[in-house]
C-alpha cells in the first residue's frame, strides 16, 4: 500500500485498488502537484483535439444530423412513420425516453449522493458524469416532445394560461413527468455549472487568446478563489447536493408512475419506483464506465481516473444490478401470488412468448454477464469492464423494451393482439439519439474542464493543513481527514 506522504512520491503504476483499513488509498497517482493537475486538465481544453476526436465528432455529428432529418420526416408526415400502432401505442419513443433519463441518474448519484456520503473518489469523475446526465436528459426530453403527435402544441404540457381557459390535468402522471424531468434538467444544469465556476476561472486565467479569455471570463463570473467566496460556495454546493438527492430519486419514481399508475398488467405494480431507480443507476453507471474507460486512455487521465475509481464504479454497478435482478424476481413472484390471470399471463408470455428473445437478451445482459464483476481481476481489467458495461447498456434498453412492448402487445381481448415492428425511422432515431449525446459530450470534452480541478486538488495530501513537515511526522493523513 502506498503511503500518502508527499516526500515519497508514488510510482505511477501503484496499486491503489488495494484496501487497507488503516489508511486511505490515494486518489491521485503519479508525480502530480497542484500545478500538474491544472496543466493536464486545462491542457485538454487548450490543445487542438487529436485525430480520434475529429473522427468521433464527425461520426456523432452526422448521426445527430440524421436524427434531426428524421424528426423532419416525422413532423412532415406524422407519427405513422413509426411502428407505433394499436395496441402497442407506446413504443420506441417511450423506451428511448426511459432509457436516456435513466442514464442521467448515475451522474447525479455520483455528484450529489456520493458527495453527501463523503465518497471522495467521486471528485475525478463527477464532472463528466454530470455532463453525461445533462446530455442524456436532453436526449430523453426530445422523445416525449416529438411523440405527442402535434408537436406545435407541446406547450399544452405546461401550465400556461391559454385562450380556451384550459389547464393541464395534475392528476395525470404524465404531468408529474413534465415537472419532474424539467426540474431535473434545470437543477442538474445548475449543479454542473456551479461546480464548474472555479475551473472556468482557471481556464480564463490561463487563456492566451482573446476569444477564450472573453468566453471563459464571462462564464467564470469573475471568480478569484476568495476564501469568503469559497465559504458560501461550499455551502451552496452542499445544499444543491442535498436538493438533488431526493430529486434524482423522485424523477425515475415519477417516470415509473407513468406505467405503475395505469391499470395494465405488467405495469400496474408497486415495486416500480424502487425498481426503476435501481435500474436507472445501474444503466447510468454502465454508461459512465463506457465513457470513463476509453477517456482515461485517450485523454491521458490515468493518474486522476485510477483503477480504484473504476473498481468502485464496478462495485456500484454490481450492487445495483443485484437489486435489479431481485426486482425481476419479485415481479414474477407477485404475478404468481396475485392470482390474477392477466397478470400471470403477461409474466409467462415474457420468457416464453413471441418476445422471448428480448426478455432473454435482457436477462443475459443485465443479470448474467455483469456477474463477472464479482472478480477483482475483472474489475481492474479495462476489457472486462467494457464488456460488462456494454452488456448493461444493451440490457437496460431491452429492459424497457420488455416492459413497454410485451405488456402492450397482448391486449385484454385476443382479437386486439398484435405484434410491434419498428420501422427504419424508429431505429434511425434511436441511433441518432446516440449521435446527439456524443456530439455534445465530445464538445464538452474539448471546451470545458472534464475533471473538476478544484475538487481533485482538495483530495491531494498537499491540500491539507499540517502537511509537508517532513517524513518523521506520523499521523499526517489522519489529522488532515479530521480537519474536514
Amino acid at each position, binding site marked *: 500500500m502506498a503511503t500518502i506522504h508527499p516526500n515519497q512520491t508514488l510510482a505511477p503504476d501503484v496499486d491503489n485498488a488495494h484496501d487497507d483499513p488503516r489508511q486511505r488509498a490515494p486518489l491521485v497517482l503519479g508525480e502530480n502537484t497542484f500545478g500538474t493537475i491544472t496543466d493536464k486538465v486545462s491542457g485538454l481544453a487548450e490543445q487542438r483535439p487529436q485525430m480520434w476526436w475529429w473522427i468521433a465528432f464527425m461520426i456523432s455529428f452526422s448521426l445527430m444530423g440524421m436524427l434531426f432529418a428524421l424528426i423532419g420526416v416525422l413532423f412532415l408526415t406524422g407519427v405513422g412513420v413509426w411502428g407505433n400502432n394499436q395496441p402497442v401505442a407506446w413504443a420506441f419513443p417511450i423506451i428511448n425516453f426511459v432509457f436516456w433519463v435513466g442514464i442521467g441518474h448515475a451522474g447525479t448519484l455520483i455528484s450529489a449522493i456520493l458527495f453527501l456520503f463523503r465518497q471522495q473518489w467521486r471528485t475525478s469523475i463527477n464532472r463528466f458524469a454530470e455532463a453525461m446526465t445533462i446530455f442524456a436528459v436532453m436526449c430523453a426530453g426530445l422523445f416525449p416532445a416529438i411523440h405527442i403527435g402535434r408537436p406545435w402544441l407541446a406547450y399544452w404540457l405546461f*401550465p400556461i394560461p391559454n385562450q380556451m381557459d*384550459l389547464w393541464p*390535468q395534475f392528476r395525470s402522471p404524465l404531468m408529474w413527468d413534465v415537472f419532474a424531468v424539467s426540474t431535473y434538467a434545470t437543477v442538474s444544469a*445548475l449543479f454542473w455549472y456551479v461546480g464548474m465556476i472555479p475551473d472556468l476561472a482557471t481556464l480564463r486565467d490561463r487563456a492566451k487568446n482573446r476569444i477564450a479569455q472573453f468566453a471563459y471570463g464571462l462564464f467564470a463570473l469573475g471568480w*478569484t478563489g476568495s476564501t469568503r467566496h469559497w465559504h458560501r460556495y461550499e455551502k451552496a454546493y452542499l445544499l444543491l447536493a442535498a436538493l438533488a438527492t431526493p*430529486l434524482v430519486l423522485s424523477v425515475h419514481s415519477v417516470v415509473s408512475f407513468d406505467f405503475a399508475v395505469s391499470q395494465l398488467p405488467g405495469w400496474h405494480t408497486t415495486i416500480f419506483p424502487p425498481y426503476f431507480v435501481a435500474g436507472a443507476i445501474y444503466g447510468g453507471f454502465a454508461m459512465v464506465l463506457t465513457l470513463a474507460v476509453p477517456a482515461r486512455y485517450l485523454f491521458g487521465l490515468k493518474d486522476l481516473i485510477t483503477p480504484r475509481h473504476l473498481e468502485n464504479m464496478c462495485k456500484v454497478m454490481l450492487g445495483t444490478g443485484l437489486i435489479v435482478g431481485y426486482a425481476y424476481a419479485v415481479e414474477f413472484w407477485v404475478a404468481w401470488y396475485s392470482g390474477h390471470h392477466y397478470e400471470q399471463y403477461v409474466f409467462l408470455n415474457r420468457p416464453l412468448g413471441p418476445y422471448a428473445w428480448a426478455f432473454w437478451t435482457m436477462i443475459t445482459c443485465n443479470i448474467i454477464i455483469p456477474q463477472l464483476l464479482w472478480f477483482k481481476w475483472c474489475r481492474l481489467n479495462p476489457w472486462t469492464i467494457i464488456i460488462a458495461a456494454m452488456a448493461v447498456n444493451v440490457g437496460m434498453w431491452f429492459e424497457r423494451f420488455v416492459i413497454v412492448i410485451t405488456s402492450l402487445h397482448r391486449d385484454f381481448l385476443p382479437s386486439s393482439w398484435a405484434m410491434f415492428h419498428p420501422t427504419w425511422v424508429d431505429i434511425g432515431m434511436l441511433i441518432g439519439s446516440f449521435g446527439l449525446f456524443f456530439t455534445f459530450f465530445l464538445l464538452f470534452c474539448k471546451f470545458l474542464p472534464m475533471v473538476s480541478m478544484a475538487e481533485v486538488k482538495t483530495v491531494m495530501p498537499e491540500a491539507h493543513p499540517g502537511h509537508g513537515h517532513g517524513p518523521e511526522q506520523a499521523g499526517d493523513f489522519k489529522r488532515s481527514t479530521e480537519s474536514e
Partner: protein
Amino acid sequence: MAQLDAGQFVAEDVPAEQALTVQGVVAEFEKVDDVIAAAKAVHAAGYRYFDVHSPFPIHGLDIDMGVKPTILPWIVFVAGVMGAAVGLTLTIWTMSIAYPFLISGKPLNSIPAWIPVVFECTILLAAFGATFGMLVLNKLPMLYNPLLNVERFRRATDDRFFVVVDARDDRFDEAKTSQMLEELGASAVETVKD
C-alpha cells in the same frame, strides 16, 4: 474589494500613471500551511478588509479569518417554502377553482396527487435560491477585478495561495503591510493598482 466606481476611469489625456490608485497588496504563498499561518497573523494584527485566494477551498480557514457563517441556508429555506406555496397554489387553484373537472369521482382537491408537482416546485425554487443566492452574496458576476491586473495573481486558480489586504482597511499602509506580509514568508508581494 474591487472598486467598480465609474469615477475612477479618467479622461484619455491624463497620463495613465497618474490615474492609478492603490487598491491593496497581494502576497503570494506556496504552501497551504504558510498561507493559513499568514492569514491568522494578518487577522491577529487587526486587519479586517483582507482575503485569502486559493485554487481550492481550505477548510477551517474561513473560521481563522473571522468569516461569519453565511445566511445562505435561510435563503434556500425561504425559497423552498415559496416553491411549495407556488406548487400548492397552482395545483389547488387550477384543479378546484379555475378548471374543475371531475375524474372518477375523486375530490376536486386531491392533495396526494399534487404532491409530485409541489415537490418538484419546492426543489426547483430552492435550487435557484442556492445558486443565485450564493452568487448575489458573493457579489458575482464581477466582470472586472483589479486583482487580475497582477499577472502573478492568475495562479490563484492554479497552484498558489494569496493573501490580499485591501486598501480600505484602516490599518492599511502600503509599505508597512507589504513588509509584514514579506516577514510572514510570502514568496512575492505586489501592490494592486487600478
